[in-house]
């Protein structure tokens, strides 16, 4: 967990405005491109302008991925994020590569199980490590919903979309048999975010 409490930064995080841009980075197979599409869909459900994009290599699994979602009221011109409000990282490689891009008043969320050593610089964005993987194993006996818990955390922290829209987008995207586990993963994400926010 970060040295700073959320309460001490909450007034200035995202410049006191609503976060509108999220970058996800992980490894092929984590499902973070899917996560960015789901988040974008939730944005459309709420009537916002939305742009989603991704970068990946030729591999089907493994290899570094980057995906991005922008949700805002105004037009979206340049289709890539230069300085995202939020970075969600599931690999050390992605975290180190993209952390410098995050806005100074932004937020970095990383998985503290998959990335045990985080080299904090102290200054800059609010950085928080959350043991997403072990929380999922503990509650669901599987880590496959790591992209869904990621979405629960992002929405829990930023309220970039409402929970109802997010849940609709998540459940529409996956087969019905995954609904229970996905809802649990979202709820864990919301709960952890709330606990951090409450200090």
């Amino acid at each position, binding site marked *: 967990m970060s040295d700073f409490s959320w309460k001490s930064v909450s007034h200035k995080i995202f410049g006191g405005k609503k976060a509108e841009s999220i970058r996800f980075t992980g490894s092929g197979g984590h499902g973070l491109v899917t996560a960015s*599409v789901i988040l974008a869909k939730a944005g*459309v459900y709420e*009537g916002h302008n939305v742009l989603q994009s991704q970068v990946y290599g*030729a591999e089907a699994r493994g290899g570094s991925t980057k995906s991005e979602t922008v949700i805002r009221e105004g*037009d979206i*011109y*340049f*289709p*890539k994020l230069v300085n995202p409000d939020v970075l969600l990282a599931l690999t050390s490689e992605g975290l180190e590569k993209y952390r410098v891009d995050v806005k100074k008043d932004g937020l970095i969320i990383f998985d503290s199980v998959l990335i045990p050593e985080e080299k904090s610089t102290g200054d800059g964005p609010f950085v928080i490590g959350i043991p997403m993987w072990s929380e999922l194993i503990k509650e669901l006996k599987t880590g496959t919903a790591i992209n869904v818990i990621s979405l629960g955390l992002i929405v829990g922290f930023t309220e970039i979309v409402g929970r109802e829209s997010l849940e609709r987008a998540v459940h529409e995207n996956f087969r019905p048999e995954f609904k229970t586990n996905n809802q649990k993963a979202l709820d864990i994400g919301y709960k952890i975010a709330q606990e951090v926010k409450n200090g």
Partner: protein
Amino acid sequence: MAIESYLWQGSHAVAQGALKAGVNYFAGYPITPSTEVAEFMAYALPSRDGIFIQMEDEIASIASLIGASLAGAKAITATSGPGFSLMQEGLGYAIMAEVPLVIVDVMRGGPSTGLPTKPTQADVMQAKWGTHGDHPIIALCPASVKESYYLMVKAVNLSERFRTPVIFLTDETIAHMRERVQIDVDEKLYIEPRIEPKDPRNYKTFQPDERLVPHQAKFGTGFRTVVTALYHDESGFQNTSAEVAERFNKRLVDKVEKYIDEFYETEEYNLENSELVFVSYGASHRTVLQVLNDSKNPKWGFLRLVTIWPFHDKLVKEKLKKAKVIVVPELNMGQMVKEIQRLFGDTKKIVSVNRWDGELITPDQLRKVAEQA
């Protein structure tokens, strides 16, 4: 029956546009970053009595389109640089035999297999001159997901109107990104009908109408249809005399280029007041929009080429007459900029801004160049 919001990927918008235009045949070979078009068509066509075939390669793919189109289908394929290279021979055949079809080329980094998952705009000249011989080509280039839908309808329409292949020239960025699209999918759009000859007795396969377009009968409908890519007279039979070659090649080019005003499309902003004009297309236009939005410079504007080919010398010259500086951002080493240089020579300052590393030209990069220009 109403405007609704969708989250569409660029490739899916292309496929939706094709279906809207009445496309009922797709043959192709999967290649990143175009595969999503094939994927969508494979899903959609069978339930609409259409045909989807995954061919053994791109050479066979275009050959299959030619056959399907001659038999009356509205046929398209989707590919990327390496596959587009393989299609060039078939493309030439389709131009010569005057066969309507659309090739979607989703540009990625080249030459050869290059950068499969990353964007460039380096097939601009290949679209124009990839196949040999003097020939007409129509190429259209979208800059958003929504436009990909409407422009694909136009591409299919133009191929039918002129009986010639049309290149839908998009790129990895526009094809792979998803945007909110607000659209009425039931909206009635103009769909170009294929004109069919009525009287088999006086039928000649390549007899042009007053607009220089021959209206071929569908194969297997009782007409004596003869098709060859050798020079041929109106009957369709081979004739390589100087007189026929001269007349035929001229008509082939004129049937498109004489009617350029009918379909040529650009988008513009602030050209009346601008000393500096960005000339852009496709993904790099999105950088231009960001720069103009951020800078609010009242003396900057843009001219976006929606129709990439043919190039409209007269119109572009007129549109850019007030500009002192023309900045041309492209994801290649400078292809379209050469057309601008050809128009203006040394009479205007022309700045080429280029990137070919698989990344987009950033707003910062472009703004700095414009400020120093």
